[in-house]
């Protein structure tokens, strides 16, 4: 996870460095917030925080204090610690699930866009089937059947993301496959594998990466919604969605219990969206077209 995140950051800075003036303050604030969330999530075990699951049952919904910086939740657990551990879940699911979509969907999309023919019909058809299936019902069924765990959750959301990545990859490949450098490579007798990996992949990768960041934002929201419904990570592990769900029970007594995780999720999703949008604008094929 950490290595991926690091390479991401590098990509981001590498791509954006020459155009830094156009990116604006908002973009850097978004990057700053994402980095901060990543840092505390990774370091949560090292930080001097109380356990996120230990209850102090007589200290319920305690206000902000020195012992509990953000107070305690409805069962007397430290709110700050739960927020930080919740960030872990959101980020793990939020990054891993789109990676599944990115790798499978991206590969399928490139193959379909390059080879065309029956294979393309088959892939596009089956993706349409997957898209037509109501996602929440699908998730409900799978969770009921396989049980609740972070792994199951990640896989389901990842699979549901495949069609979108496939479409982005296929669309990019379709336009690129007729470009001169591909035809030139074919004329030079390059194999299909070489054309796909050396000629097409580097060009398809950038729009996919921008879409990936948007996917992260969407996934965090989906995970939150599922946890809110009680279908996310099993308790007592905290996630932002389940914290909002639990906080809702005492909305008029201690509204902060629902609002703190909601704000954390809002900022994170907004940041990923901002970064993703900026990257998408930079890699938009229309701008770079000849």
């Amino acid at each position, binding site marked *: 996870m950490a290595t991926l995140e690091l390479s991401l950051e590098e990509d981001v800075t590498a791509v954006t460095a020459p155009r830094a003036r156009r990116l604006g303050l908002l973009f850097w604030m978004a990057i700053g917030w994402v980095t901060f969330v990543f840092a505390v999530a990774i370091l949560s075990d090292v930080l001097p925080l109380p356990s996120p*699951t230990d*209850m102090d*049952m007589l200290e319920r919904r305690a206000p902000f204090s020195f012992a509990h910086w953000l107070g305690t939740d409805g069962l007397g657990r430290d709110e700050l610690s739960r927020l930080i551990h919740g960030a872990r879940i959101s980020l793990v699911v939020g990054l891993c699930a789109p990676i599944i979509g990115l790798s499978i969907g991206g590969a399928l999309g490139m193959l379909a866009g390059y080879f065309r023919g029956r294979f393309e019909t088959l892939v596009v058809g089956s993706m349409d089937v997957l898209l037509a299936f109501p996602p929440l019902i699908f998730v409900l069924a799978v969770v009921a059947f396989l049980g609740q765990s972070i792994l199951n959750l990640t896989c389901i959301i990842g699979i549901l993301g495949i069609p979108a990545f496939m479409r982005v990859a296929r669309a990019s490949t379709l336009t690129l496959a007729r470009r001169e450098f591909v035809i030139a490579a074919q004329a030079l007798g390059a194999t299909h594998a070489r054309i796909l990996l050396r000629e097409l992949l580097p060009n398809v990768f950038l729009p996919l990466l921008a879409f990936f960041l948007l996917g992260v934002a969407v996934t965090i929201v989906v995970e939150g919604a599922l946890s809110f419904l*009680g279908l996310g990570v*099993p*308790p007592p592990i905290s996630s932002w969605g389940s914290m909002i769900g639990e906080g809702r*029970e*005492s909305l008029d007594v201690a509204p902060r219990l629902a609002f703190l995780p909601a704000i954390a999720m809002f900022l994170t999703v907004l940041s990923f969206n901002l970064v993703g949008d900026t990257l998408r604008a930079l890699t938009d094929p229309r701008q770079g077209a000849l």
Partner: protein
Amino acid sequence: MKAAIGSNALARIFLVAGFGVALSAAPVSAQKQGGSITVGLELDIPGFDPLKVGVYDTSAETAAAAIFDTLVTLDDKGQPVPKLAQSWTHSDDYKTWTFKLRQGVKFHDGTPFNAEAAKANFDRQKDPANKCRCAFYIAGIHDVQAPDESTLVYNLTDPAVNFPALLTIQSSNNVIHSPTAWKTKGDDYNRNPVGTGPYILKSWTAGDRMVLEKNPDYWNKGHPYLDRIVLKPLPDAQSRFASLQSGEADIVWDDEYDADNIQKAQKDSKMTVHTYAGSGAQVYAFNTKTPPFDDVRVRQALVMAIDRKKMSQAITNGLARPASNPYGDGSWVKCKDDGALPYDIEKAKALIKDYGKPVEFKMIVTATPRGRTIGQVLQQFWKQAGANMEIEQIDQATVVPRAFMRQFQLTPWRIVDLADPDPQMYANFHTGSPVALANYSNPELDQLLEHARTTGEIDKRAENYCAVSRLVNEQAIWFWTFQNTYYAISTSKLKGLPKIYHGVIDVSDTWLE
């Protein structure tokens, strides 16, 4: 024995006389006719045909209490009083009960209510060909006979001293349906119920509302008072309370896990909190055939690690009443010594250490906010004792089949408020019963349970049940957290709500001031 029969007979005469007085007194008091109320229930009602739905939950029972009648009902003191049956007698061995039925009562569709109709209801549920899930609860009744229009005879397989009181809950077994209606409507009957009750089903939109209109020909003249009752499923506690505050609902179902709102309503002069401390308890069963619960030390340790007072404080603001036996303060079974294991975390740690192996298991909880909270609190207690519990959330409807198939290590269960402990205690702990969830068999326990159901003397029965409690507590095959307390919150204008017996909010005889 004789003394008991004598007092019973006396009570009967007194009760019938009392009912007569109540009837004549009714029109004099200040009940107001007319108006309409909206009731906020916890769950959507799946239907009323016992063959289709098996058993009713308390939401369906609220509707059933308005559409149907039972033979017997409970008065304010919890004593059985006549409803569709006017009087009853029993044989000396309490195995045959004869009911004299009210005459001139008609179902909403015009079919006359008589002994034959009541017998048809029973036979339909008992018939093995119908495979009714409700049949389990009438397994103790061998057959029902209708020797004439107004006489109904129940022949029981085992003695039941308190039998009429058991017929009072508005369950799928006890409410009387119109035989013509289920025969002519077939599959549609489930959503088009026909009874003799004070209200007639007018319209029903699944998941939204059920509208009941006053039955103008109700046999109990002067009743009901309201013209219309609207029942709405509002599963979320917050939105239920919000609709009461906004005046959208006039009375809502509630439970102690919604303690903030209950306490808020108690301080609000515009609202009335109705509460009933029933018998029974919220209980949990260990599957004693699976490790680590095959070892009594582990079971005892887990029970001793639960600090019920703290738990009540944490999840219900202290409203939930800790339980030390399965009967509770609302039951006539009072024990000097129920053998409850004390809260003792050090002893619990020692027992688990003594067991030697790591204690790891899964506990079933319902996939509701309530279930998750209880699960997490218990998990915390057991973690302190050195045991590792994993929460398995499953759908509320799946808990029962999983329990019957014994696919669990630790499952939640409920001993509901009934007038007599026998049906549930016998089913829960007697060897071979499908609900004996612990898979535990003990001849001494069986003997106590059998003796308790065949004795007429109330003191001896209570003593037996206390011995059962001591045995179960000591073996820790089940444990109890909190006694049953039922709640409803209404506007202060709503009057005449009876006690929430069995957890059923019966609004059929209420009025608006």
